[in-house]
Every structure is written in C-alpha cells, then in structure tokens.
C-alpha cells in the first residue's frame, strides 16, 4: 500500500487562492491605471467590476498530495479561458459550446469498464479506480492540432500506474479508449459530425509513459463537465485531440485501435499525432502556434514556435526511435 506523500515544499506552481489573488491584484492594478488616466479618484472598488465572481473556480476542491514535480516557466492560461474555450464536439463544435451546453451532464456516479488482454477486467467505479493513487498536480502545455496552445494545471494520476493494476498481458500492445455516449445529455451528439462515441488510443509504451496522465481535475478542482469530467486522458506531447474526455472504457488490445479523427481524415490526423513542427497538417502549418496564456487581453506577440513533441522530446523521443515520424505522424 502506497503512503500518501506530504505536499512538496518550495512549490513552483500556483495554488488556487493565489491564482485568484494574483488576478485580482492585476485587475486592481489595471483598474488603477484606468482610474489614473481618466483622472478619477482612486475610490473605485475593484471588486465592483463583477468579474472576479464570474471567474471563481467551480467544482469541489481536490486534496492534492503532490505538486511541483511537473512545472513550467510559461505563464498559465487563465482559468476562464481554459474552461470556456475548448473542443468537445459532443457538446457542440463551437469552442464556447462545451461550457454553455454541458450543465446537464451527469459526471457522477461514474464507472469505467476495463477489458481485453489483462488479468483483471470488469467494471470499476471511479472511486475504486482512483483510491490507491495520490492525486498529483502537473502543469502541462496543451497544443491543439488547430494551431493554438494553452498551459494548464491538471490534477490526476499516472495512467501507467492505473493500468498496471489490471496486469496487462503480453498481448496488450495498445489501449483503446471509448468515451461516453449520451446524446440526451450532450447536444452535439445529435449531429453526426463525428462517428460517435469518440474513440482514442495509445500504444502500450506510450500509455505506460510517466507523462501520460489520467486527469480528474483542473486548477485544483474537479474537472468541469466541459473539460472531460470526471476522467480524461492528457498526453502532453501529442495534439490535444488524443486526450479522450469522459472515458467509460479502456480495453487492452493487440492491434492498433481505430480512432475517431484518424478514421474521419487519415491523411490529416494520424494515430500517433505527436506534436511535430516539421510535419504540417495538410491544410495548415504546424511550425508555430498561438499561445493562449497570461493575464488579460493580449493580441500581439502570441505566436511562438512549436517544439518537437511539444517540448517533451527529452522524455518521450526515445519511444519513437527508428520510426519515420513523417509517415507515422
């Protein structure tokens, strides 16, 4: 039985109360600047702006056992942006749709079916799945295949640590992930935009890699529905669409599983989908990306070079040694 380690000291990440106070401080600063230029008295209360309430973090706060192991120098994406601008086609194809149409989704109770080539299989409640693992906060870059990126503080557990408990056999060469199929609660599923339910997969060594994360939270709180509650995959060296949301089934399989975007447009979305500035999407460049991060309105200077494996090359490049990444994009 693993002991829950105490929180790391000398934290480099930003705990939730500080996200907020920092934002408020900046807002005070900017409002102060506006007041000064407008020649007003400094009496204007910053909290009267009503924005802080709108940006307060929703969902249950999580008990995080470990922080500071995966941190980045890049500024974080605002909580509001990370939760109100994302792709989750089950809730609609607009990037604002998931936040708007996901309120009726029931993320609890939840269970996940484990199937395929493993000694232990069956249906497990989310609680059972998570129980032995201390929650960890990790700050990862997220690069969307569309050419924008974010920096997000996820809370979760190592995917490999969870998978090992089911004792996959030597036939388990890949994992196939199936996500939730509830058209009644997910209005986007009523249009046949994609072949529902959304399916993703990883090669077993990718799945076992310490960077692969099963996330249950964001910004220290439970995942909002729109970000894939209650359980989703985060694979930071791959394009965002690999990160299957609201996972209901994990199957250990012998052959490369069929995945949704790859089936829809195999020449545009590969199975591997490793972030790679040298391999363009057939319709647009992947050399650079627009970074959605930092405080407030920033229009200029967001574009930044895209890094091979999204900057995680030191950790993951060896997984693909000898592979032609142009062909296996």
């Amino acid at each position, binding site marked *: 039985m693993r002991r829950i380690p105490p929180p790391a000291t000398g934290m480099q990440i930003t705990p939730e109360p500080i996200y907020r106070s920092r934002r408020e401080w900046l807002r005070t600063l900017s409002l102060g600047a506006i007041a000064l230029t407008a020649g007003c008295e400094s009496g204007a209360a910053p909290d009267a702006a009503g924005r802080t309430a709108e940006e307060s973090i929703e969902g249950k706060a999580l008990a995080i056992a470990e922080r500071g192991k995966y941190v980045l120098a890049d500024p974080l*994406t*605002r909580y*509001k*942006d*990370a939760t*109100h*601008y994302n792709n989750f*086609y089950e809730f609609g*194809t607009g*990037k*604002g749709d998931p936040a708007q149409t996901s309120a009726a989704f029931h993320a609890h109770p939840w269970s996940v079916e484990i199937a395929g080539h493993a000694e232990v299989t069956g249906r497990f409640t989310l609680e059972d799945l998570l129980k032995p693992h201390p929650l960890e906060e990790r700050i990862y870059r997220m690069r969307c295949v*569309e050419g*924008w990126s974010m920096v997000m503080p996820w809370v979760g557990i190592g995917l490999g640590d969870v998978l090992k408990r089911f004792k996959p056999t030597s036939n388990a060469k890949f994992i196939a992930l199936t996500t939730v199929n509830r058209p009644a609660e997910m209005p986007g599923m009523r*249009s046949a*935009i*994609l072949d529902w339910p959304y399916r993703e997969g990883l090669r077993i060594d990718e799945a076992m890699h310490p960077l692969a994360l099963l996330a249950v939270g964001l910004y220290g709180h439970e995942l909002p529905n729109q970000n894939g509650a209650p359980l989703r995959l985060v694979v930071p060296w791959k394009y965002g669409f690999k990160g299957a949301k609201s996972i209901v089934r994990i199957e250990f399989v012998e052959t490369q599983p069929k995945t949704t975007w790859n089936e*829809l447009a195999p020449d545009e979305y590969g199975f591997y989908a490793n972030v790679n500035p040298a391999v*363009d999407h057939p*319709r*647009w*460049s992947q*050399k*650079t990306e*627009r970074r*959605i991060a930092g405080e*407030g*309105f*920033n*229009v*200029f*200077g*967001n*574009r930044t070079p895209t890094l091979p494996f999204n900057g995680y090359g030191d950790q993951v490049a060896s997984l693909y040694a000898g592979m032609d990444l142009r062909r296996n994009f």
Partner: protein
Amino acid sequence: MTPAASFFRDHATVMKALLFATCLVPLAWLTWDALHDGLGADPVAALEHRSGDWALRLLLATLAVTPLRRLTGRAELVRFRRMLGMFAFFYACVHLTIYVVIDLGAYWSQLFADIVKRPYITVGFAAWLLLVPLAVTSTRGMMRRLGRHWQRLHRLVYVIALLAIVHFLWLVKADHREPLLYLAIFGALMLLRIDARRAFGARKIVRS
C-alpha cells in the same frame, strides 16, 4: 427638377448615409469587444473569424442587390450596390491585415509560404487580390471609361464569392454547416438571377 425627384435624391442620400453607418457597425462592435476583453480566449482567432464573416456577408449582400431589384421592381436599389461591395472589400482588407500583422506578426514572412502551400490561404488570398481591380474600377469615371468591359470585369465577383466560401470550407475541421449555409445562399442568389432573367425575358416577349 420635380419635387418628387428632389425628394428621392435627398431620400437616397439619407439612405446611403444610413447604410454607410450600418456597414461600420460590425467594425465598431469588433473594436468595442477588443477593448473590453470581449473576444474570448483566443482574441486573434475571433478578430480573424469575425472580420472574415463580415467580408463574406457583405459580398453576398452585394450579390443580393440585383435579384432584389428585379423581385421588388425597385431599380434605385442599385445605388447601394457599390457601397456594399466597397465595404466587402474593406472587411476583406481588415481580415487580411489581422492575419498578417496581428496573427503572423513576427512570422509575417510565413504568408508567402502559406499562399503557395495552403490551399485555403491560396484561395482566400486570390479572392482578396481579385477584389482589388473591382474596388479600383468602382468609380463612375472608370465605369464610363471601361464601357462594356466594366460589366465583364465585374462578373469576377461571382468567382470571388465562390473562392471566399471555399476558403471558409477548407479551413473547417469537421463541421461544414456554416460555410455550406453561405454556399446555399450564394447558390440561391445565382438561381434567382437565372429565374429573374427568364422572367424578365418572358415578360418582354409577352409585351412585344
């Protein structure tokens, strides 16, 4: 000049001023949102999409003038066509400027590679480029000077509208409903032209 004609002239001037102001509303709205952090998480994408939407909408509005004129029998509607077309060009310029100056920014030289390598940029850029001669020759003087060639040149607008819609279609990942709606509107405007022409021709025959 009869009082009626003078009334109409004043009226048309007022209407033109109103239309001018209306066409500036999307720009004002965009500017307001930009200054009030109202463009969402990816303000650059919002600026691009919204300016592009308005360029396309105004282009289709320009193409709607002739069928509308024929359907309503109000020939004076043609007076508004040039302004709509010029605003379509204006928003296309805003759209392109945002892409090059704000989005690409320091990477602006990527534009040339994009034009060659990215079909959706190729057609989008071609649409903008083809608008330039139409904008330049939109004055009354140019109309007179070009004579019958003017109309032939300005038929390019059909190609431009189609290119603009293809530009939209090709950049979408999976949900093609919105660009297809524009394509349907474009198709309808083209069909109305044929029908209107036929109806026109038929009436002439009846009258002769």
